[in-house]
């Protein structure tokens, strides 16, 4: 046994460099000789013109594209789906109907007629003819637009050499379209953004304490002045919301208390004005956001306890999508140095709530 193993080892060892060269050659041969799985090409310059873009109306569609493969083409398959990917399941766009479609005009490659049609499917057919004119367009009347304008729909195109759109495809491609109303006629609850600000607000904004300012007291170089206010916000808009804090820092005439531009803790004895939206211990002020919905959050720079910042125009809270009512408590801190000129320092902060695009 030992003898056999030793002989095998000696034999294999002398051939190991040959093996690596052979493997490399084999890999290159496979790489060069293996041909692509399919010869079908994508239609180019694909477009769809919907004459009347209003949801649910009956209008005309002009489908345009450029044939790419110089082959006999006898049929074109048009399938209307939500998803443009050819190998995905086709879901008919809500409200769409092409069952009464009529081919009223054709340019470029002509001679087609409608072989069959259904709610979301049209097959154009003609006698076998070679492609001579690359760019072509086909106009269909009596097509009913989809009713859902919240999502795009698409036309999946395929050309075939057979007259009934069977067998292998020659060219393929998808066209994207979307209906959009000039003026939205509300058939359901419209998107809304609810927002309120005061020293104290109710969770649903139904009431406030009707005090739209916060008193900080008298400046003292040995302690931090603090105050808090509240704001509640919610939206049923799918894009969510963003709240920015706007306004200058505290000032008295030409003298200003520097805002905290970079996240920092409260430093007694230095000129500082900053805010955050969480509960703090130094100084003890503020509250964490209140509300069950987790989508709405304070921005990272304004959500660290005992760290403050104020930069006009910064987003202080946001939600990337639908958010039920959420209440944020804003903490304000002010520190002053000995060199700060005496005066009554004040500011007005405007919180702006907007939708997102």
């Amino acid at each position, binding site marked *: 046994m030992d003898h056999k193993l030793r002989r095998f080892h000696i034999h294999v060892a002398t051939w190991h460099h040959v093996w690596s060269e052979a493997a490399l050659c084999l890999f290159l041969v496979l790489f060069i000789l293996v041909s692509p799985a399919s010869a079908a090409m994508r239609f180019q310059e694909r477009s769809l013109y919907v004459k009347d873009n209003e949801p649910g109306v009956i209008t005309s569609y002009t489908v345009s594209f450029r044939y790419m493969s110089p082959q006999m083409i006898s049929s074109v398959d048009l399938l209307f789906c939500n998803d443009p990917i050819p190998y995905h399941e086709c879901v008919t766009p809500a409200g769409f109907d092409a069952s009464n479609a009529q081919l009223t005009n054709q340019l470029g490659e002509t001679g087609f007629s409608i072989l069959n049609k259904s709610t979301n499917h049209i097959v154009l057919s003609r006698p076998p003819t070679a492609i001579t004119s690359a760019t072509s367009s086909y106009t269909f009347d009596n097509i009913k637009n989809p009713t859902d304008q919240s999502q*795009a729909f698409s036309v999946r195109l395929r050309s075939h050499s057979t007259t009934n759109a069977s067998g292998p495809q020659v060219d393929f491609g998808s066209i994207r379209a979307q209906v959009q109303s000039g003026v939205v006629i509300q058939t359901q609850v419209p998107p809304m953004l609810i927002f309120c600000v005061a020293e104290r607000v109710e969770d649903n904004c139904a009431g406030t304490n009707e005090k739209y*300012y916060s008193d900080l007291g008298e400046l003292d170089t040995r302690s931090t002045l603090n105050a808090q206010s509240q704001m509640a916000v919610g939206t049923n808009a799918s894009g969510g919301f963003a709240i920015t804090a706007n306004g200058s820092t505290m000032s008295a005439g030409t003298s200003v208390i520097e805002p905290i531009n970079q996240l920092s803790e409260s430093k007694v004895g230095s000129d500082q004005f900053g805010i955050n939206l969480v509960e703090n211990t130094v100084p003890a002020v503020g509250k964490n956001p209140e509300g069950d919905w987790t989508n709405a959050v304070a921005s990272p720079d304004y959500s660290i306890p005992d760290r403050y910042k104020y930069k006009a125009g910064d987003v202080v809270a946001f939600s990337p999508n639908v958010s039920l009512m959420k209440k944020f408590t804003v903490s304000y801190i002010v520190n002053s140095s000995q060199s700060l000129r005496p005066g009554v320092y004040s500011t007005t902060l405007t919180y*702006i709530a907007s939708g997102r695009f």
Partner: protein
Amino acid sequence: MNRLKSFTLAAFVVFVSTGFLIPPQTASAASAALSIVPKKNYVIEPGKSLNDKLVIRNIDSTQPLQLTMRVVDFTYTDDGGTPKLMLAEDAPQTTWSMKPFLTLPETVDIPANGSKSIDMNVNIPKRQGAGSYYSAIVYSSGAPEGGNVGLSASGVTLVFASIPGNVKEDLKLEKFGAYVDGKNGAKPSYKYFTTEKPKQMAYTLKNNGNVTEAPSGSIVIKHMFGPEIRVDDVNPNQSLALIGQTRTYAACIKLKEQQVSFNNSTTEAKTCDEPTLWPGYYGASLNLFYGQNGNKTQEIISSGGFWYLPWWFVITFVIVLLIASFFIWRVVRNVRARLYGPKTQKIRRRR
């Protein structure tokens, strides 16, 4: 009689002085709670105009709401969907501004717990070129008096108008991959190796055209040994890439849809659910489509991938590797001992 005149005059002076010298307390007697429409979209042909209504509600049940309204331009803040409002009075007008086309009242008063429909007119000049135009309507409540920090609330409606025709559309794909949430609320980022289970796939597009774009399409991710997962709607909120913006779109690998009650109505909320992912490498392919009505449909195809290696898997893998190495070492040692005899090792040590 003179005394009566003097008394009357003095009373009048006191009355007038009081009116001028005591600061008005209007701010604390007005509401700062409002409900507005966050976004409006229109398609208007050149030379046509359109009338619409903006519904504003005063949520406060006791105080009236006094709002001033003005139109400002906006652009993007970052690669997300937060608008950057150009609030300065002297801010230059943007090339995509809707200011010249919008007509609105300047103020509106709404009683407590009431609502008002504001007439809005959008008028597009005859020779206006095709493209996207957008601005923001800012509703401001009054500025308060008193205290050190005055508080004021404003709401914003974003208004988008699309003028049909031949437009320049050009989206360039900049990034595509797994998008993992940052720690302590930090912004999510693209990861090639991640120990956290990614909940989202994302792609970043640069819009070099003269229209806003909302691409649609799908993402397919496939584990090295497992089944594939398909994300059918890669832009479920129809989010826009503004003109010149580099926009990151994030799509949930597993979407959770739920009906929630908002302000006495039901609405559909979409959030990312925990997907079922095995440790290992995932290949991902992106197929995007975009194009305005009557313009060419453009397609973006890309592929990428990511490694999902949770700590428990890494630790288990290292332990298994160490055990396997130990057994291989023992086998090699035994084979060598049988081939060359136990003396071999001693001889080597001497050399």
